[in-house]
C-alpha cells in the first residue's frame, strides 16, 4: 500500500485544488450622468451651479474583495502588471494630461484585473487608499503605480488616495477647488521621514457595493457626489477645497460625502452613507428595467 501513497496524495491534491477565475472590475468616472473628460465643461456644479472643468481624477483603490450571495467576502488577487497594480493596490486614472489636466499623466486606466475563486458574486468591497504598510515608501524608489510624484505628499503623510481637482468659472470670477484625501495625523521627526506608528486619521474610504454583478456592471465614481452640499465659489483658502486637513472647513463639508468622519478619519456610522460610488448600468440591465 505504501507504494500508492504518492498516488493518493496526488489525487487528494488535485481534488482539493481550488478552481479560480479571472475577474475584471470596470470603473467609470462621471460628473452626474456625464462621463468625465479633461477639457469638458460641466454646467451646474456645486450648490452655486457654476461651470466647471475637472483637472484631475485619480484614486488608489486597495483591499479588493468579491461578495457572494451569502455575504461572504473572498479576496481578489490583483494581477501584478508592473504598472497599474502592485500587491493589493490599483490605480484608477481618468485624466489624460490634456487641456487643464496638467498635473496628470497621458496614461489612463479604468479597470482592475485579478484572480478570484470561481463563483457567482453579487457585490464588491474595496478601500479608497493605500494600505499603511505601503503608504510611506520612498516615492522615487517605490514600484509603479506608487512612484508617481503628483500623487505623493511626503514620506510622513504618504500618498494622495483620491485626487479630484476642479476649476470653475462663475461669470468673470474663476478659481480652483481641489480635493486630495490621504492620511493625516501621522507623526515623525520630519515630513521626510516615515511615521513609526499608524496615522491617527487613516482616511481610507471603505466602499461596499452589493446587489449587482461586479464582473459585468461598471462601478461609477461620481464627482458630483463628492461635491454634495458644497459651493465651489466659497471655498476657504488655502487650499481652496479639501486636502484632508482636520481643521479645514471645506473638508468638514466634503468628508460626509465619502462616509468618513473628519475628526476620526474612520467611518462615520456604518460607512454605508457615501455619495461617491454607485453601481452603474449596462445596456442589458437598463433594458431589463
Amino acid at each position: 500500500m505504501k507504494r500508492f501513497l504518492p498516488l493518493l496524495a496526488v489525487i487528494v491534491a488535485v481534488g482539493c485544488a481550488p478552481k479560480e477565475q479571472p475577474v475584471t472590475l470596470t470603473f467609470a468616472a462621471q460628473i452626474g450622468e456625464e462621463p468625465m473628460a479633461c477639457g469638458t465643461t460641466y454646467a451646474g456644479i456645486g450648490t452655486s451651479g457654476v461651470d466647471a472643468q475637472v483637472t484631475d481624477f485619480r484614486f488608489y483603490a486597495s483591499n479588493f474583495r468579491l461578495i457572494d450571495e451569502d455575504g461572504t467576502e473572498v479576496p481578489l488577487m490583483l494581477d501584478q502588471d508592473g504598472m497599474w497594480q502592485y500587491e493589493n493596490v490599483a490605480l484608477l486614472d481618468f485624466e489624460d494630461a490634456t487641456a487643464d489636466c496638467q498635473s496628470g499623466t497621458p496614461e489612463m486606466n479604468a479597470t482592475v484585473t485579478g484572480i478570484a475563486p470561481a463563483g457567482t458574486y453579487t457585490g464588491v468591497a474595496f478601500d479608497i487608499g493605500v494600505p499603511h504598510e505601503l503608504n510611506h515608501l520612498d516615492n522615487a524608489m517605490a514600484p509603479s503605480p506608487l512612484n508617481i510624484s503628483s500623487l505623493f505628499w511626503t514620506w510622513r503623510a504618504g500618498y494622495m488616495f483620491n485626487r479630484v481637482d476642479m476649476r470653475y468659472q462663475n461669470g468673470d470670477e474663476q478659481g480652483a477647488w481641489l480635493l486630495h484625501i490621504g492620511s493625516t495625523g501621522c507623526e515623525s521627526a520630519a515630513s521626510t521621514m516615515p511615521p513609526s506608528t499608524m496615522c491617527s486619521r487613516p482616511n481610507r474610504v471603505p466602499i461596499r457595493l452589493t446587489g449587482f454583478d461586479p464582473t459585468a456592471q461598471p462601478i461609477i465614481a461620481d464627482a458630483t457626489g463628492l461635491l454634495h452640499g458644497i459651493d465651489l465659489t466659497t471655498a476657504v483658502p488655502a487650499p481652496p477645497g479639501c486636502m484632508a486637513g482636520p481643521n479645514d472647513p471645506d473638508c468638514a463639508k466634503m468628508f460626509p460625502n465619502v462616509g468618513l468622519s473628519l475628526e476620526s478619519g474612520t467611518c462615520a456610522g456604518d460607512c454605508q452613507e457615501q455619495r461617491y460610488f454607485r453601481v452603474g448600468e449596462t445596456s442589458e440591465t437598463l433594458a431589463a428595467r
Partner: protein
Amino acid sequence: MAVAALVHLYIAPGHYAHAPGHGLFFGGLGVAQAVWALVYLRRRNGTIAAVGYALSGGAVVVWLLTQLAATPYALAPEPIDAATLVSKLAEGIAFGALLAASTRPALKYTLGSAYALLGGVLFWGGGLLGEQVMPQLGHQGEHAHAEGETGPHSHGEDDTHGGVTLKTLFASWFGPTGAEAYDWNLPPGFPPPRVPKDNPMTAAKVELGRHLFYDARLSGNGTQSCASCHHQEKAFSDGLQLGVGSTGEVHPRNSMSLTNVAYNGTLTWANSGFVTLERQIHVPIFGEHPIELGVTGHDAEVLARFASDPMYQDLFAAAYPTADDPVNMAHIIQALASFNRALLSGDSPYDRFVYQQDMDALSESARRGLELVLSEDLECHHCHGGFNFSGSTVHANSRFFEAPFHNTGLYNVDGEGAYPVTNTGLHEVTNDPDDMGRFRAPTLRNVALTAPYMHDGSVKTLEEVIDFYERGGRLIEDGPNQGDGRTSPFKSGFVGGFSLTDQERTDLLNFLHALTDSTFITNPAFSNPFSVAP
C-alpha cells in the same frame, strides 16, 4: 520522446513572448526530453525509466491539470484544441509504450502511472508556486517597461525594452560583453536615470562630451561653448537675465541650470517635444532663431576642427571604438547628451538630512522651511515635488510620463491672461490657447545659485520669488507688460497666495539655501578639462 522534445522546443519561444513562465517550462521540458531520449538509447535501467515516466506521462498530467483546473502564469485554463489533443494522445501512447517495454511488468502500470502523476503534479505545483514567487513571468501579452516606448511589446522583445530576460540576466551575471558599464555614482535615494537605447552611457562618451561642452570650437565663429552659458559654479546657469549667443544675439529665455537634467520629463523651459537631451541639444548647436552656438552653415568647418586635433581623435576613438570615422555631429550630440546626463547633484545638506540620516545637516530654521515647502499652505511641492523637486520628472523605473507645465500668474498683459507675445511658453509650441504662459517647473535643487529667476529672468532674487508666490501672481503696475497676474484665468490652482511671518520667510530661504550642493559645483569630473582655452 524525441519528437515530443522537438515539439516542445519549437513552441517555447512563442509562449515566452506572452508569458515567460510558459516559455521557460516548454523549453526546459523539451531539453529534458531530448536528453532523456539520448540517454535511453544508450542505457536502460529502473531509474532512467522512472524519469521517462515522469517526463512523458507527467507532461500529459500537466496538460490535463491545466485544462481542468488552473494554469499557472495564465489568466484562464488553457482552451482545448485539436493540435494539443492529438499531440497529447501521441505522448500518452508513447508513455504506454514505455510502460509496456518496462522490465518489471508486475508493477509497471501502477508504478509508472504514479511516477507520471507525481512528475506532472510537481511541475504544475511548481508553476503555481512560481507564480506567487516570480509573478513577472506571468501572462502579459503586451506591456511596457519605460515611458517613451513607441508602443507596447511582448516578452520576446524584453531585452531591447529594458526588461529582465535570460539575456539580460546572463549579462548581469557574467558582466558586460561590449562597452564597460557606466558607473553613475548615484546619490542615495536617486533612481537610475532613463537613457535612450541608442545612446548608452559610457565613461568615454561622458569624457568626450565634457571636452566638447567646454570647447569654444563647437560654435560657428569659435567664440562660445556650452559652458559660456552654463557655469559650473552657478550649477551650470550663467547669472544673466537672458542668455547671449555666440553672435551677440540675446535669447528670450534665461539660461537654465543643468542640475539633474537627466531626470527632466521634458527639456528647456517650455517644449513638450523635447523628451531627450539628444533632441534638445540640436537647438543650441544649430538654432538660428535665436543663434546660440551658430553651427548651422559651419558644420564642415566645426567638424574639421575636431577631426584634425589629435586629442579629439583619441577621445572620439575611445568613445566610438568600432566607428571608421567617428568625428560627426551625431556623435558630438550623443557625447554632449551623455555628459549632461552625468551631471547628477544629490549631496546638499537636504540630501544628507534625508538620505544619510544626518540630523544636524539642516538647521532648525531650515527644517521649518522644509515643512513649509511641503505644506498645503504654500503648495510648493505640488509643482516642485519628488526627489528632484520638480513634478516634471522621469527615471528608468517610471511607468508614467509626468511632464506638466504650469502658468504661475507671472503676466497678464491683456486682462485675459496673455503673456508678452515673444514669450508665451508651451503655447508657442502647441498654439493651444489653454497653454498660454505654461512653463515647466524647474528643480529647486541649487536654486540659490541660479538667479535671476523665471523663464525670462525677470525676478532677480529668491526673496522676490517668495514675494511673488505669496501674492499669488505678479502685479506689474506700468509699462508694456502692465497687468495683474493674480487674476489670470490660466493660473495654476496651486498658486493661490499665502501669508508668511518674517520668521517663516527666513526659514523658507534657509531651506532653499540648504538645497545647494557644493560637491556638485566643485566636482572635478564636471569641470573644465582645459587649463588653457583650446
